């Protein structure tokens, strides 16, 4: 086991895939969280014509097939495409754009539904306490911090496990845009199963850690002990 782990961790291709995956997932989750949380708050707070349609579109995007998003981003970024001059195709930045488009609606939709459920009573409470507008917003964010964290973890999980969009937009270039998932896909097609399985285990391990963090947060909520 130890030898196997040593081999896996000393393979530069695998290390680079882990690095690319992490860079991409962290960047896209960060951007998608800022956008998604902001949109979610605005969507819950304000009434405007067409709000129902916006919500419906967002729900549709929450379940959009990543490979379709990948295709659209590819068409936008390809040399003859409208954003071609930016030369973002086959770069990590391009992959982050695709991932952000996939994750933002998910985070926005989740935040929106959490807010719909709890924001009215928090707002009412804030009025009775005499909180001003900013104190109310801060209170809502603080009260929903676990939910916000849960959304971010979900987004991150989606990002590290995604294959289709990063394959199309990133191009699976070794050492540059090859992620853990696209490496597995490639290894399988070459019939190299051992390393594929090793990478798979690494990914599962990451998913487990994420799940564990979520679990800790939920448990903290239920515990009656001092904290």
């Amino acid at each position: 086991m130890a030898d196997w782990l040593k081999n896996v961790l000393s393979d530069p291709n695998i290390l680079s895939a882990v690095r690319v995956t992490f860079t991409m997932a962290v960047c896209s989750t960060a951007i998608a969280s800022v956008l998604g949380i902001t949109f979610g708050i605005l969507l819950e707070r304000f009434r405007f014509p067409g709000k129902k349609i916006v919500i419906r579109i967002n729900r549709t995007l929450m379940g959009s097939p990543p490979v379709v998003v990948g295709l659209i981003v590819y068409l936008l970024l390809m040399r003859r495409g409208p954003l071609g001059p930016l030369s973002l195709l086959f770069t990590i930045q391009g992959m982050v754009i695709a991932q952000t488009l996939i994750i933002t609606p998910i985070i926005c939709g989740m935040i929106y539904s959490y807010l719909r459920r709890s924001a009215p009573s928090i707002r009412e409470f804030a009025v009775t306490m005499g909180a001003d507008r900013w104190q109310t917003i801060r209170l809502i964010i603080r009260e929903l911090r676990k939910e916000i964290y849960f959304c971010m973890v979900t987004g991150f999980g989606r990002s590290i496990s995604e294959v289709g969009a990063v394959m199309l937009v990133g191009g699976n270039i070794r050492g540059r845009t090859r992620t853990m998932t696209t490496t597995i896909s490639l290894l399988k097609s070459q019939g190299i199963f051992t390393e594929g399985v090793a990478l798979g285990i690494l990914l599962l391990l990451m998913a487990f850690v994420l799940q564990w963090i979520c679990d800790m947060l939920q448990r903290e909520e239920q515990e009656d002990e001092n904290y």
Partner: protein
Amino acid sequence: MKITDLEKRIGTFRLQIDHLDIEPGRIHGIIGPNGCGKTVLLKTIAGIYKPDQGRIDYEGVTSREITMMSQRPYLMDTTVYKNLIYPLQIRKIRPEEGRVDELLEKAGLLAQKKQYARSLSSGERQKLSFLRAVIFRPRIILIDETFSNLDPESEALFTEMIREIQKKDPITWVIVSHQMEAVHQLCEVVHHMEKGRVVEK
């Protein structure tokens, strides 16, 4: 506080208060059957609802000096202590630890000071919410139905604390209930409500 020609619609319900005088420094009771608009009236006074028509003259009391204790108090996702000092925190007042402990002690919540607030029993939640309402010394306190579901011990505690506050530095209380007894015992002025209106009895 003077309420004149106040109107507030919520769905098919209509609250209509032609005239209601809430004298400062006294304990007022509002009695009426369920669904007669007591809570809507309190929430409108508290500023949670905006009146559709008419006005409330607070006679110099600002919105920050009014607080309301809800029927089901909202407790923040944190400890008993942090819930208690929240109104002080947002007013940038440093809590006097002695007074905080004294209040908790009186309500029998001192042992739970560092405990997670949402693990409290419903009676303890009401007590905490009551302490949180009085801790920042507001000028008007609105209490919604709390007295209807308290155990005798807590009811005695609330009554005692209200009387104590009135003796030292009287503030205005508006206590809503569908239980005549509790309200009549404590309140100096009692108003009756029916179908969204204040009626004479």
